[in-house]
C-alpha cells in the first residue's frame, strides 16, 4: 500500500515524522504535566502551517488532499495527543463547514486566519442530552431582525476554553428540526452572553481542553450563518463525516507508536537471561498488533484516496473509524501486557496512550453509532469499493 503513495506525500509524511521527533516529542511530557502546549511550540506549529493544511491554497492554506492529510495525522499521533488535537479543529470540524458551505465573504474573513493559526476554532454540536443523538440538540437560535439570538448549552467541546471562533449548531425551527430546522453559525469569542462553563477533567487528552459553552441571549449576525438557514444539520454531518477519518488516522498513528515501543521493550527486557521477545506469546501479540495495524492502514489509505477521487465513501469512512479505533484499543491492551508494571508509570508513553486512546472509540460518533450507520448502509445495498472492484474484475472474466 505504501508503495502506491505519491512521492510528494511520502515526503510530507517524512517531514512531519522528523518534526514530531525533533520538535514535538521532547515536549510530550511537558504537555502532560502542565496540561498545555508551550507557547513557543504552538508558534512553531503555526509557522509550519500545520493549522491550515487542508484549507484551500486560495485562502492561505496548504490545500492538502484527504490522503496526504491522513498521513500527517498518522505521524502527528505518534507523540502527545494534544499536538494533533489542537490543529485538527482548524483543519477539520472548525473550518470544513466554512470551506464547504460558507459564503465567499465568510471564507475570506476566516479561512486565512484559521490557516495561519491566528484564530483557534471549536465545533459546538454536542449537548448534555444530545450526544449520539446529535439531532436532539436544544440550543435555540431565534431570528430578530438582522441577527439571531442564541440560547443553550453545549458540552465536551474541544478547544473551547482557548477558541476564538465557534462553529455552533442550533435549532432555528423546533418543528422542522433536521428537516430544515437546524442552522450552523460562526460565533466569535467575546460575543455577548457567550461564556465558557465547566472545564471537563478527562481520563486522558491533557493539554487538549474540553468544556461547556453557554449561550445566553447571544446575538449572531445573519451573515454568520454557514450555508442556508435550516440546512445546518446537513452542514454538521458532512463536517463530522470528514472528521472521522482523522480519528481513524489518529488510531493508526498511536497504534504504530505503541507497536514500535513494544518491540523495543520486548527486545531490551531480559527475563531469566533471555529477552522477553524470545517468548512466543509475546511474538504472537506483536504479530497481532502489526497485522491489525496493517489492515487499518490499508483501509484508511484506500478510503482517503476514494474521498480524493470525489467518490461517495461514507460507508468506508465509518468502517475506518470503527475498525481503527477498536484496533488501537486492542493494541493498547497488548502493549500494557508487554510493558507489565512499568507501563503503569506516569511519564511512560504507554500509560498516557492507554488513557488517550480510550476517547477514540467515543468521540466523533461512538463505536455503537458507527455500527448503526454501517449496518444501515449495508442493508440499503451500499457496497464497499472493494466489492465494486471485485464485481468489475469478475465481469472481465473473473478468476482464471
Amino acid at each position: 500500500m505504501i508503495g502506491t503513495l505519491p512521492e510528494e506525500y511520502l515526503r510530507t509524511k517524512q517531514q512531519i515524522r522528523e518534526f514530531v521527533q525533533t520538535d514535538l516529542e521532547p515536549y510530550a511530557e511537558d504537555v502532560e504535566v502542565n496540561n498545555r502546549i508551550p507557547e513557543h511550540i504552538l508558534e512553531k506549529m503555526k509557522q509550519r502551517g500545520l493549522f491550515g493544511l487542508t484549507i484551500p491554497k486560495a485562502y492561505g492554506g496548504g490545500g492538502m488532499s484527504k490522503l496526504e492529510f491522513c498521513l500527517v495525522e498518522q505521524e502527528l499521533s505518534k507523540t502527545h495527543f494534544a499536538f494533533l488535537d489542537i490543529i485538527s479543529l482548524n483543519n477539520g470540524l472548525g473550518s470544513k463547514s466554512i470551506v464547504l458551505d460558507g459564503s465567499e465573504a465568510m471564507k475570506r474573513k476566516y479561512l486565512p486566519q484559521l490557516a495561519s493559526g491566528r484564530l483557534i476554532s471549536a465545533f459546538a454540536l454536542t449537548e448534555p442530552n444530545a450526544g449520539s443523538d446529535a439531532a436532539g440538540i436544544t440550543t435555540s437560535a431565534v431570528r430578530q431582525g438582522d441577527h439571531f439570538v442564541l440560547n443553550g448549552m453545549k458540552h465536551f467541546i474541544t478547544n473551547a476554553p482557548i477558541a476564538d471562533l465557534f462553529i455552533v449548531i442550533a435549532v432555528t425551527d423546533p418543528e422542522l428540526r433536521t428537516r430544515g430546522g437546524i442552522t450552523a453559525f460562526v460565533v466569535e469569542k467575546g460575543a455577548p452572553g457567550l461564556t465558557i462553563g465547566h472545564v471537563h477533567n478527562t481520563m486522558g487528552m491533557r493539554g487538549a481542553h474540553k468544556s461547556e459553552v453557554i449561550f445566553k441571549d447571544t446575538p449572531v449576525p445573519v451573515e454568520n450563518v454557514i450555508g442556508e438557514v435550516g440546512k445546518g444539520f446537513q452542514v454538521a454531518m458532512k463536517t463530522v463525516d470528514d472528521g472521522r477519518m482523522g480519528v481513524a488516522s489518529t488510531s493508526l498513528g498511536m497504534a504504530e507508536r505503541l507497536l514500535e515501543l513494544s518491540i523495543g521493550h520486548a527486545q531490551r527486557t531480559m527475563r531469566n537471561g533471555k529477552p522477553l521477545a524470545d517468548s512466543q506469546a509475546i511474538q504472537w501479540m506483536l504479530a497481532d498488533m502489526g497485522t491489525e495495524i496493517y489492515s487499518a492502514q490499508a483501509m484508511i489509505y484506500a478510503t482517503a484516496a476514494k474521498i480524493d477521487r470525489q467518490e461517495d465513501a461514507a460507508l468506508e469512512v465509518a468502517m475506518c473509524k470503527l475498525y481503527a479505533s477498536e484496533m488501537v484499543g486492542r493494541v493498547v491492551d497488548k502493549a500494557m501486557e508487554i510493558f507489565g508494571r512499568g507501563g503503569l508509570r506516569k511519564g511512560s508513553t504507554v500509560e498516557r496512550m492507554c488513557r488517550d486512546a480510550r476517547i477514540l472509540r467515543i468521540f466523533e460518533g461512538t463505536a455503537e453509532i458507527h455500527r448503526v450507520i454501517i449496518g444501515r448502509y449495508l442493508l440499503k445495498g451500499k457496497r464497499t469499493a472493494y466489492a465494486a472492484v471485485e464485481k468489475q474484475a469478475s465481469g472481465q472474466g473473473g478468476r482464471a
Partner: protein
Amino acid sequence: MKFTLTEEQKYIQKAIREFTRGEFDEDQILELLENRDFPQNLFRKACKLDFVGVGYPEEFGGQACGMMEQVLVIEEFCRKDSSVGIALGSADAGAEIICAWGNDIQKQKMLPGLAKGKLVSTVLFGDVDAREDGRPAAILTPEGDGTFRLNGNADFVMNAERADVFIVQAQIGADAPTADCAFALLKRNTPGVTLQALGEKLGIGVIAWHHVILQDVVVTEADIVRPADEGRGAMLDFQKIHLLRIAAMFLGIAQGALDMALRYAKQRVQFNRKIGEFQGIRHKLADMYMDLQATRALVYAAAEGHLHDHGDLHDLLGVKLTAERTAMHLTDEALQIFGGSGYMIELPVEHFYRDARTLRALSGRTVFQKDVIAQAIVGHLT
C-alpha cells in the same frame, strides 16, 4: 442466579453493603483520588465494624471466617468503589502468612493491630508472576549470633509508605534450589530499609507505590516466620490466598461496573428512548452479566474449595486470570455505554476502568501465569 450462601455469609454481605452504601461517598472519593490520599476514615470505620481481618483467629481479633467470607468482603468493597475497595482490601496484605505460620507471639504482636487498623502491612514479593521458580525478594544470611542480615529489593510495592510492617518473602541462605523459604517481619523505619517513591501511576490513586531496598537489615529470629514445611509449599499456599483476594477484587470491580452501566442505560435518553431499550446496548449488558456470573461462580467455588484443600496453584491462577479478564471486559463496556461522560473523571466508571488495568499489571504478567497453567496441564514433552 442465586448463589448458595450460609446465613452468616449473607449477614456479612448485607452488613458490608450497608456500610459501603452508607459511607462511600462519591464526591469524597473523587477528592481522595485527586489528592492521592489513602481512605483513612473509611478504613478506620471498616476496622471498627470488624470488616478487616475477618479471617484471623478469634483470640487475635478476628472472626475465624473462611476464604469465602473474605472474598465476599473484598468483593463488596470493590463493587462500590474500585480504588477504595482495593485500598481497604489490601491494608492487611500478608496477614494470612502470620495467621498460618506465625507463632503466638508474632500473632499477638501483629494481628489485633491489623484488625483494628492500628497497623497497616504490605508484602514484598520477589516475583509477582507466581512462577514455581520465582525468586524471593530478599536473602536472609545467618550471622552466627542468632541474628540475620537481610538483603534484597522489591519493585512496585503498594502502600509501602503507609505500612507499619513489611512482610518480606525471603529465603535463608543464598543457595536457591534448596534454600529454606521464610518471611521476615520488618518495621518500616528499621535501619537499612530505603523507600524510593515511584511517582504517579495509571490507577488506584489512593495507594502510593515504591521501590523498596533492603540493605544489611538486621533481623532477629523473633521476626522471622518459618512455615512448617520450610519450603516452596508455604509460599505457594500464600500465593493461592493472595490470588483469591485479587480475584475477589476483580469480581467486585466487574460487578460495580455492571451496576453503573445498568443504572445509566435505564435513565439515559437518546433518540427519544432510554438507551437501555436498544438491542445493541441490551445485549452488551447481557454479555456483561453472563461473564460476571460465570466468574462469580468460579471465584466462589474456589473460595469454598479453599476450606477443604488449598487447590492447585495453576487453577487459582486461572481463577484470577478469568476474573481479571471479566473486570477488563466489564469496565471497558461500562465506560463505552456511558459514552463521552464515561471519559470524564467526574464519574466513577472512569477510574474503575483505569483501576482494573492497573490491578492487572500489578498482579503479574499474564504470559508467565499462563506458562504455569500450561505446565500443569501439558507438562514437559521432551
